[in-house]
């Protein structure tokens, strides 16, 4: 299967938060205390499991163009792909819409005969992007992980919970004062998370008295 093959089906897709796009836009706040929220639908996501000591790990690094990150919460960037550390033998390879088949092929090739797995989970989660000067403050209302730039920052990811929802938070490279977080969330919880974030953004929408 190639990217092109599926492209004609694009009109059949519905992203988990597609119907909320207007609300997300309306809830976003521009400006120096601002915070923006949008869905980035259909990112390719491949779950990779392998033993980092196996040759497969090195092969994956070669084929992907970056070694698999081995430090907790590290993110490796290669071309349009982001390789997120999820666990000592688990990674999430995130790429642009449509790239899943290619990534899958690459990863399978890397895995070869070694033990492990490659699972396409692109539709399992969607992505909410929260950015802007107040993005961290909004997230801190429901996230107990230390997101301060001294403890976290661009190029780091973390699996945790925001409010009552499990997420993978991936912080993109940006000004520390204006961070951009990608929140990967299970499709069935996406609406709750979006509602929760919009609610947490109220304070910034309504000004300091919110």
């Amino acid at each position, binding site marked *: 299967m190639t990217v092109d093959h599926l492209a004609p089906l694009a009109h059949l897709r519905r992203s*988990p938060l597609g119907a909320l796009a207007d609300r997300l836009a309306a809830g976003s706040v521009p400006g120096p205390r601002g915070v923006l929220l949008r869905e980035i639908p259909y990112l390719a996501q491949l779950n990779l499991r392998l033993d980092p000591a196996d040759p497969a790990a090195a092969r994956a690094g070669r084929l992907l163009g970056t070694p698999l990150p081995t430090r907790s919460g590290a993110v490796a960037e290669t071309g349009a792909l982001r390789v997120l550390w999820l666990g000592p033998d688990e990674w999430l390879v995130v790429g642009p819409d449509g790239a899943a088949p290619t990534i899958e092929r690459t990863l399978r090739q890397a895995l070869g005969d070694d033990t492990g797995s490659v699972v396409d*989970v692109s539709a399992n989660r969607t992505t909410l992007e929260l950015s802007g000067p107040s993005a961290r403050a909004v997230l801190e209302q429901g996230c107990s992980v230390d997101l301060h730039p001294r403890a976290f920052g661009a190029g780091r990811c973390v699996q945790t919970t925001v409010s009552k929802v499990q997420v993978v938070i991936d912080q993109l490279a940006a000004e520390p004062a204006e961070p951009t977080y990608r929140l990967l969330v299970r499709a069935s919880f996406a609406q709750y998370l979006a509602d929760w974030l919009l*609610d947490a953004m109220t304070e910034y929408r309504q000004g300091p008295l919110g």
Partner: protein
Amino acid sequence: MSSRLPTGGRVDRSAPLRFTFDGVEYPGLSGDTLASALIANGVLTVGPSLYRERPRGVVTAGVDDPHALVQLERPQNEPMQLATTVELCDGLVATGLQGRGRLEEEPDEALFDKTYLHTDVLVVGAGPAGLAAALAAGRSGARVVLVDDQPELGGALLGGREEIDGRPGPAWVAEVRAELETQPETRVLTRATAIGYHDRNYVLVAERRPDRPGGGGRLWHLRARQVVLATGAHERPLVFAGNDRPGVMAAAAVRTYLGRYAVLPGRRAVVFTTGDSAYATALELAAAGAVVPALVDTRPEPPAALVEAARAAGIEVLAGSAVVGTEGEERLTGVRVSALTDDGQLTGAVQELACDLLAVSGGWSPAVHLWSMARGTVRYDEALAAFVPDRAAQDVRTAGSARGRHDLAGCLTEGLTAGAEAATAAGFPVEVPATPSCTGDEPPAAPRPVWLVPGESGDPSTWRDHFVDTQRDATVADVHRAVRAGMRSVEHIKRYTTIGTAHDQGKSCGVAAIGVIAQLLGARSPGEVGTTTYRGPYVPVSFALLAGRERGPLFDPVRTTPVHPWHVRRGAVFENVGQWHRPRYYPRPGEDMDAAVLRECRAAREGVAMMDASTLGKIDVIGPDAGVFLDRLYTNGFAKLPVGSARYGVMCRADGMVFDDGVTVRLAPDHYYLTTTTGNAAAVLDWMEEWLQTEWPELRVSCTSVTEQWTTVAVVGPRSREVLAALAPGLDVSNEAFPFMTVRHTELANGLPARICRISFSGELSYEVNVAGWYGLALWEAVLAYGAHAGITPYGTETMHVLRAEKGYPIVGQDTDGTVTPQDLGMSWIVARHKDFVGRRSFARADTSRVDRKHLVGLLPVDRAELLPEGAQLVAPGTDVTAVPAESLGHVTSSYRSAALGRTFALALVRGGRDRIGDTVLAPLPDGRTVAATVTEPVLFDPKGTRRDG
């Protein structure tokens, strides 16, 4: 008559406010508390006491006030607020309370939220000690958070006349604040009370946000590497007859009212103290224009300099004396003073002094609440007559009055040291700054605590006006009674008398009570009695604050499938299954549930029907040992399942009880695709990981949840094949080419790649079509379209339940309850004999192998129209259900009207049920009737299974 002083204070005279108390409107100033504004208007009495209805007034100027409780009506309705902590605002309305608040029906609109914050150093309290600590720590570059419950920083400096570096205290405070603001990593929170201190420096801070409509707030969850507690001290009351009268106030509070709020609580004031600190109160009262006829000091020889200063101000010092009684009805009019012997007995004549204010200082109790909640120990310091922090149990320090240090210079030094040390310990080394010069650089002289001022007559058993806990109206007589009844432990006396259990949790009276108890028990000192346990919250906090945003729509996530919008449009009635909203049935106009379900069932049995099965848990189990792994978890075998085939399996817990079931498909030699029940998806994945990681790490298997990756639509019924043929034109759907319990991958007519399993939870020919989640709605609409000609009918969980029950398929959690084995369900066939699996050994236990356990059986009510309630009990014929206890045989687990059977039926767990097939059992119903039903095999419809091939 206004008691507002013409000058001074930290109130804003350019911002007058109006407020209403007990129905009367008064003026006030911005910067006032309700209490200071009331005092300014000459109102000292707040409300009657809880039980004895004695008038009670304001005592302190902070969170430690024992009974100045009001019901706030505006700006928001809130019961049990302390007048001493309510910030005045324009239009405020409040009424005094008699110790109990009133909850209002009107919905609470205020916004309460939460935030997590991590810091290197947390400083609690922004008096001189805390400010100094924050300053020193902040200079290190560490992340510092300073919290204080007052609207303004400064603590005791706000009310006092101390000078630092030659400037008034507040000027120094402003300077420190300015420097803190330049530190990028320092954050200052005011109106923020640390309410709880938990393990690993987890501190909860409740922030009041009067700027939010309805007076909302924020709960901060702070995790600190190092903590400095600079929480100050609470001034203690003294226990003497009539010590509860309005006009009896804490001496330091009187000073705060004078200095911070510029109000004069009384015009003729007597001061009663056991130590140095109240001398300042006396002097400042005199300076403010009050007459101070006497300062009563329990010490026979108070420090000469203080006595000198008092005399110079025209205040007579009555040394070695105590106030032994008070006069007045609604308000104090006078006190009675007597000399004390060395052992605290009254001696000599009693002197009467007219006054409308008695400023009392019974000594200082360091605010060790948070320290103790952090499991720090306290020890009784005889010299200070106070419980002070002893051994820390976490990374925490104390500074200033919180550790018994009462001179300003000492507080500053301790604060600077604690702050610098905390930062250093957190990894940000920094020097201890030099202590600025200041007034009050000598520790006060030793106090002479007097725990119980004897009454002028009688003995302790009769001292019913010697109040120990004014809010609880608990007196020395009550303590005496507890002791006389045999109680020896302070914990018992607390509970017997309820001392310290009221709104203030004994902040001011707690240690005084211990002193009284010690005395009545004949203990050497309060230290021998010990304190009761300090517990959070430090001040009462609203339920709403703790609930935060997780209310109403955000209380709990609603999980939905990609098809959900269609279900909503179609008017489905939903059911909560775990966190999911699932369509229960789709009523057509005019239909009730019964009608809708009968129609949906009929469609599935006679034509074709469809259902959204996407909520089933789905797990990819991959690896060379996946088959072996599943063999160990399921009671039946999976290792030999052919690729492309599916098998139903049951999982048990180690105790042999059914835990989950579902169909697993083998997609490749090393790849299984496993489904779980909707409610158990997470639990099953956890279960698998637990065994894999902790017991069988040698198995080369990995599990990945793909529940939302796939949307699943079940197409069910005799005509499902023709619908599938149209939907998946490239697929040979014949029985031979696509047999039961197999899987196919194909492209649907609309181009969607799909995984199709031929499995059946209804006994009918049926298919489950899976596509990537984001195509889910398109799939659903496609199935509808391709099934339209056959009248395809969407159905919900209720129909699904009926269809499966007609076939005797159990629902885990409905027909099982954690006490049911596969054998009990009549599924011995699924329990492999020649392999071990989790739970197997349990079947051989004495009780588990009994033949008369409860079995799952079918029930046919004798009256074919009688629908047994699910949950109904069953008894044997002849049982007298009016005699108790009557023996139960079991209960109905599932019960429906069946279109296919043309009658009602049920499933039930019945003791020895399989041996009762053909027998009658009775169901005593809630309405008093007892109905009969015949026990049958659980499979009532198509027992031979002829329909699954279409």
